[in-house]
């Protein structure tokens, strides 16, 4: 292609602090570096991103692109628009939560997710290539008969990783002031209720422990039930709902945490696991969806998340010095493997290959 290739990225909702949002900006950066004329389009522009993207309704007025990249993470009317276009389409798939998790909590969101999954099937018929964050996500696409799927982890915000990272794990924590951390939206698929259940047993064995939940709410009903559940279990004082926090505060929580516990039933990648590893926090996670791919043996992965098992795992991880040291080393290595500085060249190479491919040149 002799002239500058024109590439348009579409993302249903664009926010700077969101993992998919950051990834989209990183891809935009790579495209510009490759000399492409890159523009981001979205259906929902947040105030902090209004100068960085255009509303997709304006797209019809813009010059036709050589390639469209669709960042797929939820259903959106924008996907129908993209499918109506004739340009080559590449999917960048970050997974969609199965709607079953939400039907009992927020039927509207459940219907949106269901719609998104159906759109994904149509997008796969329309796209000629895709990038998936994990092997788990790639399986979704290959099951939908998309032939060319490359697994490249999501491009993470290195600013969230510590610059003054500790060189060794912290001392054995005080059993009377243990901090258990989980970072992620309050959502039924992330199973914060299982964390509360486990904390009821942890608090019996180690009174004074606290659970910190960082992340905004996806479902008011789920959040309300979590708060009621904490009261029912008698651990309301031991659970902190921190909501969405700034990058600085998030760093403070990672620094303070003694253990990071993720009991999600469904994750397409789970960036917070990597962040915890980067901050030197030992990780305990439930063996579901893409979580074992992300942990990759650098944390304790449980195949049973009943409260007694999770509590035993927490107790073991905080009290076994050699295990803490090992998880610190493995976690550090894993976080380095998936840092943007390592992953970015892979994404760049893939885009170079794509822009030179026959589908784009046609």
């Amino acid at each position: 292609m002799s002239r500058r290739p024109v590439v348009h990225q579409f993302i249903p909702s664009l926010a700077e602090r969101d993992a998919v949002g950051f990834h989209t900006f990183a891809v935009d950066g790579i495209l510009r570096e490759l000399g492409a004329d890159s523009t981001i389009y979205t259906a929902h522009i947040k105030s902090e991103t209004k100068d960085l993207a255009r509303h997709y309704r304006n797209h019809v007025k813009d010059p036709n692109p050589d390639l469209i990249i669709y960042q797929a993470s939820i259903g959106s009317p924008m996907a129908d628009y993209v499918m109506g276009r004739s340009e080559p389409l590449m999917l960048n798939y970050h997974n969609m939560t199965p709607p079953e998790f939400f039907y009992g909590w927020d039927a509207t969101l459940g219907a949106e997710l269901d719609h998104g999954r159906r759109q994904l099937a149509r997008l796969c018929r329309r796209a000629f290539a895709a990038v998936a964050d994990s092997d788990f996500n790639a399986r979704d696409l290959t099951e939908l008969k998309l032939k060319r799927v490359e697994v490249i982890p999501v491009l993470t915000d290195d600013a969230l990783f510590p610059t003054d990272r500790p060189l060794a794990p912290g001392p054995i924590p005080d059993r009377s002031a243990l901090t258990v951390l989980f970072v992620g939206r309050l959502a039924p698929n992330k199973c914060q209720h299982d964390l509360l259940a486990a904390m009821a047993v942890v608090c019996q064995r180690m009174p004074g422990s606290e659970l910190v939940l960082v992340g905004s709410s996806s479902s008011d009903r789920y959040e309300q039930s979590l708060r009621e559940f904490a009261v029912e279990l008698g651990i309301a004082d031991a659970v902190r709902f921190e909501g969405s926090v700034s990058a600085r505060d998030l760093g403070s929580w990672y620094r303070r945490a003694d253990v990071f516990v993720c009991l999600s039933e469904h994750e397409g990648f789970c960036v917070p696991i990597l962040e915890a590893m980067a901050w030197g926090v030992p990780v305990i996670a439930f063996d579901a969806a893409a979580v074992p791919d992300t942990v990759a043996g650098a944390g304790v992965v449980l195949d049973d998340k009943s409260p007694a098992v999770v509590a035993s795992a927490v107790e073991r991880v905080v009290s076994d010095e050699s295990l803490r040291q090992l998880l610190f080393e493995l976690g550090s290595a894993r976080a380095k493997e998936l840092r943007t500085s390592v992953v970015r060249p892979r994404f760049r190479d893939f885009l170079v290959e794509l822009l030179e491919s026959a589908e784009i040149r046609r």
Partner: protein
Amino acid sequence: MLNDATDAREYVARIQAEISQEARRRRESDPTLATLEREIGQAWTRSAPSGGAAAASSDATAPAEVKAHAEHLLGCVDDLSLIDVDAPDGARRGVRQVKSAVRRLTRWYLRYLADQVNAFNHFLVGFLRSTEQRLARLEDDAGAAERLSAFVDPVPEADHALGRSVADQLSQCSGPVAVVSCGSGLIVSALLQAGIAAHGVDDSADAISDGVNEGLDLRVAAPLEHLSRIADGSLAGVVLTRSVERRRPVELSSLIDEALRCVTPSGRIVVAVADLSARSGPEAELLRGMGLSPQTWAHLLRRRGCAVEVSASTGSRVATLVTARPQ
């Protein structure tokens, strides 16, 4: 320290296995832990809306019929939401006026359609809201019975005479017998004295502690859950007593199905419950809709194809035993 990454990962895998073993050991050595875990599960069911507790787990299941309706409805919505966004924008000279008129007509027609869709949506949202309110009221009413039963004294323990009467009914059985809601194990003890292998289950760890200290095989478990884990036809008998007097008919029906599945073709199911007419004033009012009379138990078991015998018991509180044999 460990030699390489493979060693390290193997070490972590070994730790994972040790953690599971540790949890199992704690459960075995501390019966209150199993009780606490069950209470945690029940607390979540109370905190979560109907359907939410199951939906937020990997074994999320919805009734097949409801799911099928939802699938169909969503399919229709999905099909209807497909809009051809490729506007006919290829312009030709001389047809501008025609296209302008077409656009105006289209606009009028779309508004006409949109008004109807909006009216339908308005109605549908109202309907869904009223349905949700009604469901919430029904769920509240359904939960009220359990809450009220907390104000009534617990069902008394079986006495020795009742234990002997039950053992007489099962004297022909060769094989293990499960006693549901066994309490401190008087019926289990009577069965063992009659030479019948027996174990008991009760959902209260406190209730069984005396019997456990005496060496009886008594376990903490919810009755239905316990029976559901037993293989088909592996029990010679099942005794249903005490807590079945405080359960709703629909739960009892499931309990009968599980008990029938567990017993051998020559096995027996013995129901030892007090008659409903024996309930005092507050009990009669607060436990309304819970438990069944021996006659109704006999009826339910006959309807499931069992040969049923109603006999007198020498127990002080339970005057009648219902014994069923699958046919």
